[in-house]
């Protein structure tokens, strides 16, 4: 079977959409929940999370230059305990996927199709994600490149038009409540969205230059941070404290743009862009999960797992989070420590086990 490979540029694009997909919906709301005037200070924390992911990727590609994260678990902890680690990793990726799938159905039903059932929206989303994952990462990454010229035209337009409504006084007083709200507002960006970059480790065998993975993560994290920073500055600058009462602040920001009764209702363009990026994010998550299952079951291909796990992910999204409040609670209060434990704690545990196994083997050899 021919190996599917993607270039550095394609990887960086995939990683940017991985954060922007739902980050542009959730990060402004989460940050402004804690602080409004100092919201912009909390955004660079996304880059800190990206650096953390890049550090983990660096250790991985040094120790296992041709293995996925799940392959690394098997190499570190052996088939039995490594298998347990892989099951944990797959379950975490599955739950992250359910959250994103739920965000997809929620955004579509809230923003554009309020009379359509969430199940119908989930079926369409599931069909798209399953098909793209079935086609494979190489074709997906190539198709993803097509989005860039569109984004280059649309993004500056969406940034520049609301700029005329922005008021600098919305950012005063600076440090109105000290550093604590800024720290609290930074946590989801660092430990949820920043650590999501580490999903790229699962695609190491598919990279043309895996040794450059850490620097690619840093590049993607810096671009995503700049984009989210612009979005947060614009939403706070235009809405001020009202931003706290908006479910999708950026959508409302685009909606307020009206120039001479000629340029208006740009939210359609924004909606299309968000849906494209969420589908892209879901596909990356789904591919990571399927390749993990491939390593666990030791099969030659992952495509047999695409349909059942994709369907389970979308149904899980509807079943686990019945409403926005349950989903928001999971992202804000469970997500940070859950992802920190999985992305940092489990590999550390694996490395410790590898050391212990190495010493036990050496002792047995000496004793024998």
């Amino acid at each position: 079977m021919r190996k599917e490979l993607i270039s550095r540029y394609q990887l960086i694009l995939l990683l940017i959409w991985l954060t922007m997909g739902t980050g542009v919906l959730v990060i402004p709301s989460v940050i402004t929940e804690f602080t409004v005037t100092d919201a912009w200070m909390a955004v660079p924390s996304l880059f800190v999370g990206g650096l953390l992911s890049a550090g983990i990727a660096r250790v991985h590609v040094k120790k296992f230059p041709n293995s996925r994260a799940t392959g690394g678990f098997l190499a570190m902890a052996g088939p039995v305990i490594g298998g347990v680690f892989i099951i944990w990793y797959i379950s975490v990726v599955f739950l992250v996927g359910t959250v994103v799938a739920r965000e997809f159905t929620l955004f579509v039903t809230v923003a554009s199709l309020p009379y359509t059932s969430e199940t119908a929206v989930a079926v369409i989303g599931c069909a798209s994600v399953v098909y793209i994952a079935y086609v494979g990462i190489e074709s997906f990454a190539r198709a993803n490149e097509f989005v860039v010229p569109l984004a280059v035209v649309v993004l500056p337009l969406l940034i520049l038009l609301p700029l005329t409504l922005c008021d600098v006084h919305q950012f005063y007083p600076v440090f109105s409540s000290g550093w604590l709200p800024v720290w609290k507002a930074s946590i989801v960006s660092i430990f949820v969205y920043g650590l999501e970059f580490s999903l790229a480790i699962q695609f190491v065998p598919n990279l043309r230059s895996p040794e450059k993975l850490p620097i690619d993560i840093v590049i993607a994290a810096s671009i995503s941070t700049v984009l989210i920073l612009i979005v947060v500055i614009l939403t706070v600058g235009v809405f001020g404290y009202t931003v706290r009462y908006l479910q999708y602040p950026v959508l409302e920001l685009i909606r307020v743009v009206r120039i001479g009764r000629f340029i208006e209702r740009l939210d359609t363009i924004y909606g299309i862009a968000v849906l494209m990026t969420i589908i892209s994010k879901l596909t990356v998550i789904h591919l990571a999960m399927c390749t993990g299952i491939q390593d666990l079951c030791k099969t030659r291909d992952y495509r047999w797992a695409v349909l059942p796990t994709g369907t389970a992910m979308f149904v899980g999204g509807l079943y686990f989070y019945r409403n926005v409040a349950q989903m928001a609670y999971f992202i804000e209060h469970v997500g940070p420590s859950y992802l920190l434990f999985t992305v940092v704690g489990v590999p550390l545990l694996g490395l410790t086990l590898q050391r212990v196994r190495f010493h036990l083997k050496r002792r047995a050899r000496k004793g024998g």
Partner: protein
Amino acid sequence: MVKRPAWGPTLVWLVCVCFVVIAYLALLFQWWPDFHPLYPLELVFGTATKWLFGL
């Protein structure tokens, strides 16, 4: 050619189909409305997030 075990894919398909049927029917007919499958996770990691980050 090495013969690979087929139990893995079969098990994954079985688990996924059972999950989809049970979860969707539970959602549709409101079976066990007070049952929160993620409660243990929320308890453990929710507490950990509170301790570690003060959230």
